[in-house]
């Protein structure tokens, strides 16, 4: 017989309890998980802590810059640092990452200069970095589109014969809201049918702007993978160690030819959707308060303090570094030159294009006419 029972109706998802993979509790206690043993040194944990603090600092600075009118908008990663740093640090140099527009922490782990992110949010470019320099693709704003790019890229890895022991794999980021897009589901189909080396990393931060998770799914999101025939799992997205461990394992499986995995990192968007959003219109303060207790940084700090692995000097040093980073980020923003008008016509095509050239020449002449008339444009 073949009957597959689903839930009878919508249900509020609970992210706590036994179904979450966790290696570090909100209180900072290290716990073991039979399937995800993590061999990690204290120094490595300290390095992760440093990452968490620094990416939060980039975020804080960017929000401030936006408030001061220096950025058009900013999408804060507040609360999602562990999901991003944990997964980001699980990648090898040859792996490729496809972000959304909120993966500043992953960008950091891949080595992208934060100034590049500011360029985008300042409106100086649409991104403009070379995806191959750090194996970190451009930010993608149209929800879900990048999941297909990632899957196609993974199919390219297969064609390059780069799957195997020492293979390469792809990770693609998307949100809970994105799981409703046709493209994301098509990417699940492609990845499973071609057994492509791609890890789907869904940061379920509980909200798609004002819409709670129930608007996207009535069952936990990690279970979506079942419908497509590949493994899905849910990890505590505020636990940097667990995120590191599950991503490592899934990436290694992909590299070795075992195909895709869906990782649902259960986390929370602690800030507004973007700096133009006002979450008080749609969610209760109490929810945010309860998530503050699960802060991804604080639990690592608690662990380091409790185990004596780090002392006040360490924390002071990290704070100082964060301060410097903040200053550097700010400076890079304030000294960023505006693009020149005629760059509008650049990088549309690889070769000279009659239409673009025609419009550029006319526009250049138009701009010149102001100069010669000595009237400001």
């Amino acid at each position, binding site marked *: 017989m073949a009957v597959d029972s689903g839930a009878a109706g919508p249900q509020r998802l609970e992210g706590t309890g036994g179904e979450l993979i966790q290696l570090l509790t909100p209180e900072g206690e290290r716990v073991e998980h039979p399937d995800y043993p993590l061999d990690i040194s204290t120094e490595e944990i300290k390095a992760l802590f440093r990452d968490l603090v620094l990416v939060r600092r980039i975020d804080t600075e960017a929000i401030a810059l936006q408030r001061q009118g220096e950025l058009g*908008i900013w999408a804060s990663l507040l609360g999602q640092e562990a999901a991003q740093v944990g997964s980001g640090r699980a990648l090898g140099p040859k792996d490729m990452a496809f972000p959304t527009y909120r993966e500043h922490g992953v960008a950091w782990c891949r080595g992208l200069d934060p100034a590049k992110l500011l360029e*985008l949010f300042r409106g100086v470019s*649409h991104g403009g970095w070379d995806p191959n320099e750090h194996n970190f693709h451009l930010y993608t704003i149209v929800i879900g589109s990048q999941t297909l790019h990632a899957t196609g890229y993974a199919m390219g890895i297969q064609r390059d014969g780069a799957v195997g022991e020492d293979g390469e794999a792809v990770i693609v980021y998307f949100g809970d809201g994105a799981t*409703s897009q*046709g493209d994301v589901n098509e990417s699940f189909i492609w990845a499973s049918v071609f057994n492509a080396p791609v890890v789907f990393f869904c940061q379920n931060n509980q909200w798609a702007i004002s*819409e709670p998770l129930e*608007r*996207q799914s009535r069952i936990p999101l990690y279970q979506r993978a079942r419908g497509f025939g590949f493994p899905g799992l849910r990890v505590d997205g505020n636990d940097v160690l667990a995120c590191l461990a599950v991503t490592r394992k899934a990436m290694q499986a992909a590299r070795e030819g075992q195909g895709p995995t869906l990782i649902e990192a259960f986390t929370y968007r602690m800030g507004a959707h973007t700096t133009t959003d006002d979450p008080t219109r749609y969610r209760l303060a109490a929810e945010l308060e309860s998530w503050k207790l699960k802060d991804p940084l604080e639990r690592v700090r608690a662990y380091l303090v409790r185990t004596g692995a780090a002392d006040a000097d360490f924390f002071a040093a990290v704070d100082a570094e964060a301060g410097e980073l903040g200053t550097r980020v700010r400076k890079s923003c304030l000294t960023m030159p505006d693009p020149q008008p005629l760059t509008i016509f650049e990088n549309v095509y690889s070769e000279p294009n009659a239409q673009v050239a025609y419009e550029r020449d006319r526009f250049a002449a138009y701009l010149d006419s102001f100069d010669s008339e000595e009237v400001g444009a």
Partner: protein
Amino acid sequence: MTTLTLSRAMNEGLRRALENDPKVLVMGEDVGKLGGVFRVTDGLQKDFGEGRVIDTPLAESGIVGTAIGLALRGYRPICEIQFDGFVFPAFNQIVCQLAKMRLRSLGHVSLPIVIRIPCGGGIGAVEHHSESPEALFAHIGGLRVVACSEPADAYSMIQQSVSCEDPVILFEPKRRYWDKGEVDTAADPQAWLSLNAARTVHQGSDVTLLAYGPMIRTCVEAAVAAAKDGRSIEVIDLRSLAPLDIETIRASVQRTGRCVVAHEAPVTGGLGAEIAARITEECFYHLEAPVLRVGGFSTPYPPSKLEDHYLPDLDRVLDAVDRTFAF
């Protein structure tokens, strides 16, 4: 008469539509508690309930596709697409289903669906938030395409669109959402200007300037500025982009003998092309100069630091006007 912002006028129009017909629904992303990212649906879910003002899953094809199903069941859905650049996942449903169902059914089926699209640039946004895709819809038989430019029209045009038995794509000029204007909410709907009609918003005799949506304010400002230099520009707000109100346009161009079309969308293959081609056919012997087009460049919309150059402003509009006099 009340003074309302365009966003608020649209909100009032939606409220009226919901009040007047229990079959009217509002659906889209974040249209409920949040009231939409531009607050156009503010308060509607509170007052009409979740059954009628529906926060949908994040998928535009799903929004339009289920709206079609709801319309087949007798509802009149108003879909909000959050930003112009996000209408493309729904393009297939719009072009192949929404536009074609009436013909497919030989008239048995009507799909009275309105798709509201906040459009255009000038708000300093990131990629995909400043597009003007109207020409893509105007090319598709079976769709009506309209654009409002100011609060009073927003208020009436949304209601007329909802009353229309055919699918209507309604473009809303997002950078004008906070512009204020007088709205007569007590006026008899019968007295409203037809949804098919263009309107002369600035009288003139030397040249006809055709525009719609966000460019209307720019064009009127241009006309006012030009008047000081002794040039009399007639500005017509097209309002209906498909079909065009050719009669109004023709009458003006035959009088002025010169015509400029302005829009934010790329000039290549934009609505200005259709208008120029048609006007030239209709008014060949009246034209002192070719119909000139001023609009966005034929490139992707640039990063926002460049948008002031990309978007036709008062100077570029007047430059085009000047050029028609150089012929």
